[in-house]
């Protein structure tokens, strides 16, 4: 156990000693605010025109929907934790220090998950405040509420979702190794494939696409208004289960490749 703890300490030191981490986290926060404000503004505008329900917007609801876009900045940060080591060859130095592949991967996950969760909660809080401030303007007639009982679970959900997505990315990165390949695979899993499946119009493809990580995450976060046009047809618990299953599958794939292939 202490081997894993030491390895995680090293990964922590590595994560914060490169600028790319800071850039990615800043980009994630920026994207969260931008997407949440846009989505929140759109919902309120629809309500004001009488096209949507004239109920006030919960300030954190557009933030939950914004994760579908902002997640990619955190995907980049998580990805770099492993693909940058393959790109520079320093993965060999890492494996000299921590030769058991599973421990190395677990150590990275142990650092990436809480960091990305914290990034989700913090950037989500900033984005929620931004939505609240924007919709409080006279132009939107204050059509916004900030119920702590809903906002807090939403923000924790965003953090949890980001933790899962970044650990999943880590698994894909360990399996694929190159940054371009990892980004392609993760993008397809998170957006490309589910959107393509939605477009087919087939019920089977629709049901399957709604179980992929992005939509499973929206279900887990209790999203009611998102790019699928409504709440998910299954519970938050099931959403969590699907998210966990995707993450576990990616980690297992990464671990299998790490064990079998030469470094």
């Amino acid at each position, binding site marked *: 156990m202490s081997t894993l703890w030491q390895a995680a300490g090293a990964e922590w030191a590595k994560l914060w*000693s490169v600028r790319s981490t800071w850039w990615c986290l800043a980009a994630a926060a920026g994207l969260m605010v931008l997407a949440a404000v846009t989505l929140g503004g759109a919902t309120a505008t629809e309500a004001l025109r009488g096209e949507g329900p004239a109920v006030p917007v919960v300030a954190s609801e557009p933030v939950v929907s914004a994760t579908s876009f902002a997640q990619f900045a955190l995907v980049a940060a998580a990805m770099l934790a492993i693909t940058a080591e393959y790109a520079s*060859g320093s993965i060999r130095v890492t*494996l000299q220090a921590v030769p058991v592949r599973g421990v190395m991967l677990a150590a990275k996950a142990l650092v990436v998950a809480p960091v990305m969760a914290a990034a989700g909660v913090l950037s989500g809080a900033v984005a929620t405040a931004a939505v609240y401030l924007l919709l409080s303007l006279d132009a939107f007639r204050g059509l916004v509420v900030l119920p702590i009982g809903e906002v807090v679970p939403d923000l924790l959900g965003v953090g949890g979702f980001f933790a899962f997505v970044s650990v999943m990315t880590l698994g894909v990165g360990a399996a694929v190794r190159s940054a371009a390949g990892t980004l392609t695979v993760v993008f397809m899993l998170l957006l490309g494939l589910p959107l393509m499946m939605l477009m087919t119009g087939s019920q089977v493809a629709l049901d399957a696409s709604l179980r992929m990580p992005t939509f499973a995450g929206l279900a887990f976060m209790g999203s009611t208004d998102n790019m699928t046009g409504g709440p998910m047809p299954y519970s938050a618990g099931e959403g969590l289960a699907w998210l966990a299953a995707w993450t576990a599958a990616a980690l297992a794939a990464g671990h299998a490749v790490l064990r079998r292939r*030469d*470094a």
Partner: protein
Amino acid sequence: MISLKGLSKRYGDRLVVDDLSLELKPGTVTGFLGPNGAGKSTTMRLVLGLDHPTSGTALIGGVPYHEIRNPLRTVGALLDARALHPGRSGYAHLVALARSNGIPRRRVTEVLETVGLAGAARKRAGTLSLGMSQRLGIAAALLGDPEVLMFDEPVNGLDPDGVRWVRGLMRSLAGEGRTVFVSSHLMSEMQLTADHLVAIGKGRLIMDAPLAEVIAGSSLTAVVVRTPHARELAVRLRAAGAEVTRSGENELVATGTPIERVGDLAHEAGIRLHELRTREASLEQAYQELTEQSVEYGAGRAGA
């Protein structure tokens, strides 16, 4: 300390390391020689568990690398000095390594001073020269104060002062009883650094012997004699089984016989000698001879 048994590594249909068996002893610098692509780096990666052997084993102190707890405290290795995140400082790189193996942080400062990099340690690794990267890599290898050290081409990119420093470092590490395994192309450097030599060609072991033995065994290591009776002495030396060439009016070069025997034969025949000395082959020459044989051997095998 390092023990290879029947170690082989195949990439596709290419056998890069072929049935290699070796024992590396503590307290010696073992030079690892071989042309490019001979399998030296692969062998080192196999020892460190980075690559999986196709067959055979590589053990350190009797166990495979991945079973060593806090391995940096047992084995320090520098494989590729450029294998660094270009955006991370050398200091941060070493701090992360130290943490991973429970090494106190003051060691980072110590090894940076040892390699003379204390001033540049805060610079991003991407901005370091190759020589500085080598020093950083050596610092990383020394970090855990390990009993076994492996260096792949450590003097690449170093200036003459740096080369001399590395030579002294290797000697002193072995002097402290550590096992030092160092690969190099630079024969003259190995001749000054190594106690023991291991050479491979096409993945196969072609030499595993003490440096002194390798030099003495070369056909270019010879006895040089200057005498006014060169012709007469040549006849007697040939009769005694030596190979003799006449290198000048009064000078002979004899191989295959010790210098004492040459002196004794001359004395018995009453031949006056003006000079009697050993001319040692350089490691470069001895190595050249060995690898030429190996190349012929390899070509012969391919044709068969």
